[in-house]
């Protein structure tokens, strides 16, 4: 999938995260993560984000994340929501999201 328009999901409240997606403009997938708990959990957050994007086959898009200490399941849900909005996706294969 390719991000074709800007979209957001989530909030900047504690234990949540704000995910912003936008077209990359150059055919690549760029991920930028800022987190209040980067030092402790940065690697794990990166892994959850990358896995979620892989499952959705996102190959093209700019993904910027502002994390406020969200749990993995919240990260997954927010990334999915932002990507599906940004890809203008109509038909969803819910099985791929689990």
């Amino acid at each position: 999938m390719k991000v074709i328009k800007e979209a957001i999901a989530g909030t900047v409240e504690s234990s949540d995260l704000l995910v912003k997606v936008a077209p990359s403009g150059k055919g690549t997938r760029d991920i930028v993560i800022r987190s209040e708990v980067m030092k402790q959990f940065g690697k794990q957050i990166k892994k959850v984000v990358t896995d979620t994007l892989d499952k959705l086959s996102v190959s093209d898009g700019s993904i910027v994340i502002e994390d406020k200490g969200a749990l993995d399941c919240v990260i997954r849900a927010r990334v999915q929501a932002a990507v599906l909005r940004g890809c203008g996706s109509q038909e969803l294969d819910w099985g791929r999201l689990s």
Partner: protein
Amino acid sequence: MNATADFYTVQPKDAPPEMEEVRKLLAANDLELDDQIEVFVVCRQKGHIVACAGLDHYTIKCVAVAEDARGESLSLALGSEVVSLAAERGQYHLFLYSAPHNLPFFRGWGFYPLVEVPQRVVLMENSPVAIEKYCESLRVQRRPGKTIGGIVLNANPFTLGHRYLVAQAARACDWLHVFVVKEDASSFSYADRFALVAAGVKGIDNLTLYPGSDYIISRATFPGYFLKDKGLIESSWAAVDLLLFRDYIAPALGITRRYVGSEPFDPVTKSYNAQMKDWLQQAPSGQPPITVVEIPRASIGGVPISATEVRRLLAERDFGRIAALVPATTLQFLESLLPVNNTIQ
């Protein structure tokens, strides 16, 4: 917890009863109501407005939280509300004005500082990488040379005065970078203004023409610029816009000189030119100073050429006099705006 906090939006133009409360809340926080704000997110708690955040297109201003309601959860909820309101309105790349001492508060909203006018204001944006990406896109356009010029034009519309300024600057520089103001807040659309500049500078080979950006004379960096027709001179404060040019745009392209036409008429532009010398040349900055070169305006019959005059003549359909002030390409465009069968009226 803010379980009883109720967030909703109000539009100042509808003069809702909330505005008086918003005004008081802002005043208690040393802020004035900015009349460019299209919509406010407000938070009502126990019957009172305890927090507000205003949105002017893609810029957040007038953010305040009542002293007795302060605490992480309410302020972060307010930030989330205003960001999602902006998204609903199609705005994703957001800017925010803050007093320097509140910077940490807005870092919590996911905003990052761009430039600071000491003791006065910080401009922030909601991305840790957007400005760097923009500078990267500029850096690939760098040209070798010792004297590299930069010009920012609104060109509303492009006149022989603009052509003269660009030609003079190009002659004095090894390379010239020309930006066209992007904001669609002028009489002519950005697309039309850009096309006329592109046509008008043809034949000058040592220049690159750029589309404008949110970082150059935009509603975010210089809100006062677009109010000048309304005579709101007090909003003409341009430090933020000029610091962005000095700290990001000029270093990305290696610009050593900024060219500008002298301004005999318009007080906002005149003040902008004066501030240019302060902020680009004199103010302390981590970046080298940029020499401001003011070129006297080209004149026809002793009268300096101005786009304002062209617009006035256009309103009178006086194409005979317009022809003396603009290049053929602009004249053709202006003539094409009027249906042929109407020209006799």
